[in-house]
């Protein structure tokens, strides 16, 4: 009986941590409401949906960031190509609610238009930084989720986020 209560208390603590962690991510602007939309899409037919989409986002972003590095390194910089890549990254980050990454892409596109290589390089660094930050945070969040599920709990993000 005591064991059962202990387990419930542990689960409770995990869920509280999850809630606090997520709230902070929203508060600090790392995530926006589109992220909660992802959880609204998740259901029993696809309980890993959010993790799958976010993993796709990680792969896609890393590829785009590498392409951007290479493009900026060229002797003759193709700004249209760079803009196309940034547009893609802006789209993906917006679709999963990665607000800071999206915003850094917006600045990047402005400097692309101005064809300013130096500022574009700075923007790329900024984008990279924001990407790594959100990647770490989401991975930590998913770890917490795993622990909650392992402890017999469930994630009902929709209720917590509204």
């Amino acid at each position, binding site marked *: 009986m005591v064991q059962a209560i202990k387990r419930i208390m542990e689960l409770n603590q995990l869920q509280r941590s999850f809630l606090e962690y997520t709230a902070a991510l929203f508060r600090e602007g790392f995530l926006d409401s589109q992220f909660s939309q*992802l959880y609204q*899409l998740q259901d029993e037919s696809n309980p890993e949906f959010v993790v799958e*989409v976010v993993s796709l986002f990680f792969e896609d972003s890393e590829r785009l960031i590498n392409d951007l590095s290479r493009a900026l390194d060229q002797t003759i910089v193709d700004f249209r190509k760079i803009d196309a890549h940034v547009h893609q990254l802006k*789209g993906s980050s*917006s*679709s*999963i609610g990665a607000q800071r990454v999206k915003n850094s892409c917006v600045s990047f596109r402005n400097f692309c238009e101005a064809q300013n290589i130096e500022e574009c390089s700075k923007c790329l660094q900024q984008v990279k930084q924001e990407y790594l930050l959100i990647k770490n945070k989401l991975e930590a969040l998913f770890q917490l989720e795993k622990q909650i599920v392992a402890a017999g709990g469930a994630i009902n993000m929709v209720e917590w986020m509204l």
Partner: protein
Amino acid sequence: MDASGVSSTDGIMEEPHVLAVDDNLIDRKLVEKLLRNSSCKVTTAENGLRALEYLGLGDDRQSSVTDNASKVNMIITDYCMPGMTGYELLKKIKESSNMKDVPVVIVSSENVPTRINKCLEEGAKMFMLKPLKYSDVKKLRCQLMQCRG
């Protein structure tokens, strides 16, 4: 009415078939889930050419013998795509004799009035901002029902 006595318009009320076109993998995955969760059958295409091929409107005349076109109840396409834009895809669909009455919805992450007007003038049913939400899909389904009235 066909021989079994089931009206062919009944199918649309239950499970409309939507062709979703977007070059972004994440957006394709999202729109597919959104539509499936809303009781739609979904086919995705990663660009305009593939979409046209699916509809039997591709350049390869051999591919024009297809059942797909008659089953599609709505097309949702991204505006900004490399190669063929959503606008160009819209034009091709409106030029086709058997697909011109299928509603086409254009989506974009950017709210550009001239772009929106251009698409509506060319016959797009609606223009919506990305990322799509459940409320957007609800609107689309209402549109579909009105279409068949």
